[in-house]
């Protein structure tokens, strides 16, 4: 299992990376942490003509606070965010989600933006970005634009990114007063892909819940502060709405069961 041949560019600036994307378009792939892409290349599921390596692009290796957002740029690793001492006070839901993302050896190299751009339906970071109502910052040689997470994710491994665009950064809203957060998922082993993952933001008057691993993208629901049987009913409706499918791991029925159980559990935890 070795990658098919490709041309390689180590970009030292965003400008150089965008120039390469503008010239090569769909046949170019951005290599950031490579923790999804390298496996895909090794298995030859993708055979790009050009790899644009931004892992050493210093201006993209940045994590910062901008007004009421935590901004993570394209080359910043998951580890660099996870081990940030202030993360618990900035975006507590991220601190809760990181331990579920694969393994620490992978988070050392894997990037936050890479996971967002890859858009695996069972991945944790797209789920967190969606439930918090975060943004994706896209940039090409010609323009910059900012998309809401819900507009960015379009399907399994599908996003609104154009071939000449780079996910330059993502913005997670900072912790807001009165919000409580919880994250949970179920997988065969710790660190494996989630069969179902749930993230929630609960206030005294509302529940926002996102479910991953079932539909083709993270699905977000906003409810008033339901309790008891009303909440169980809403979770049951949600479990059917996600259109779960049977696969080699578990049945659709079991996935619906997990949505109901994990959904209840995260909302209880976030009380």
């Amino acid at each position, binding site marked *: 299992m070795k990658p098919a041949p490709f041309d390689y560019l180590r970009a030292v600036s965003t400008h150089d990376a965008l120039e390469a994307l503008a010239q090569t378009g769909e046949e170019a792939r951005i290599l950031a942490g490579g*923790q999804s892409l390298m496996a895909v290349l090794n298995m030859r599921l993708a055979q790009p003509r050009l790899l644009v390596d931004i892992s050493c692009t210093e201006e993209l290796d940045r994590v910062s606070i901008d007004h009421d957002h935590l901004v993570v740029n394209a080359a910043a690793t998951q580890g660099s965010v996870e081990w940030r001492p202030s993360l618990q006070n900035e975006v507590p839901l991220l601190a809760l989600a990181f331990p579920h993302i694969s393994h620490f050896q992978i988070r050392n*190299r894997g990037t936050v933006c890479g996971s967002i751009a890859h858009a695996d339906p069972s991945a944790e970071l797209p789920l967190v970005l969606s439930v918090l109502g975060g943004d994706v910052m896209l940039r090409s040689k010609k323009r910059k634009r900012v998309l809401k997470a819900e507009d960015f994710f379009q399907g399994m491994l599908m996003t609104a990114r154009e071939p000449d665009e780079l996910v330059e950064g993502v913005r997670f809203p900072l912790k807001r007063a009165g919000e409580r957060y919880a994250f949970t998922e179920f997988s065969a082993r710790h660190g494996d892909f989630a069969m179902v993952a749930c993230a929630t933001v609960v206030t005294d008057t509302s529940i926002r819940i996102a479910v991953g691993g079932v539909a083709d993208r993270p699905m977000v629901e906003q409810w008033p502060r339901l309790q008891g049987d009303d909440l169980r009913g809403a979770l049951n409706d949600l479990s059917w709405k996600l259109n779960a499918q049977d696969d080699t791991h578990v049945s659709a029925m079991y996935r619906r069961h997990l949505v109901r159980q994990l959904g209840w559990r995260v909302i209880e935890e976030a009380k």
Partner: protein
Amino acid sequence: MSKTSSTTLARGERRRITVTLNGREHTGYCESRDLLSDFVRHELGATGTHVGCEHGVCGACTVHVDGVAARSCLMLAVQVEGRRVDTVEGLAPDQTLGDLQRAFQRHHALQCGFCTAGILMSCADYLKRVPDPTETQVREMLSGHLCRCTGYTPIVAAVLDVAALRNNASSKKEPEHA
């Protein structure tokens, strides 16, 4: 490759790159598509790093890049140009065993030994960050590795043992300075 300008390596082209492997500069040739795991083994002759699944699942090929544990099958050789790479050979200076390896030996934390190099490299990085881990933390850290022989129990015991020994050693030093 300099850091000041972007550089390319065309398919099929071979480039001589220099890395600091276990503290010493080594050079070897690579193509753009060569994996770090193969480069370390074939070009630099450091065969302590084992290659298992080649898609980041088994953890056998874990090395340190600039001091941080990472899968060498999920990195390209060309990416480590000018950087520091440490492999299991670096844990055993002068053909002796380091404290982590001695703990593995004491606890029979390996049988066939295929996965061991990668596990040792993960443990070495993790214990620097979390010097006094709980058993749960150790098991979570080990979840990034597949071992088909041991059932993990002796590995967990070895890691907890070496952490305790290191912490004892450092706490015993304290009174000397008091």
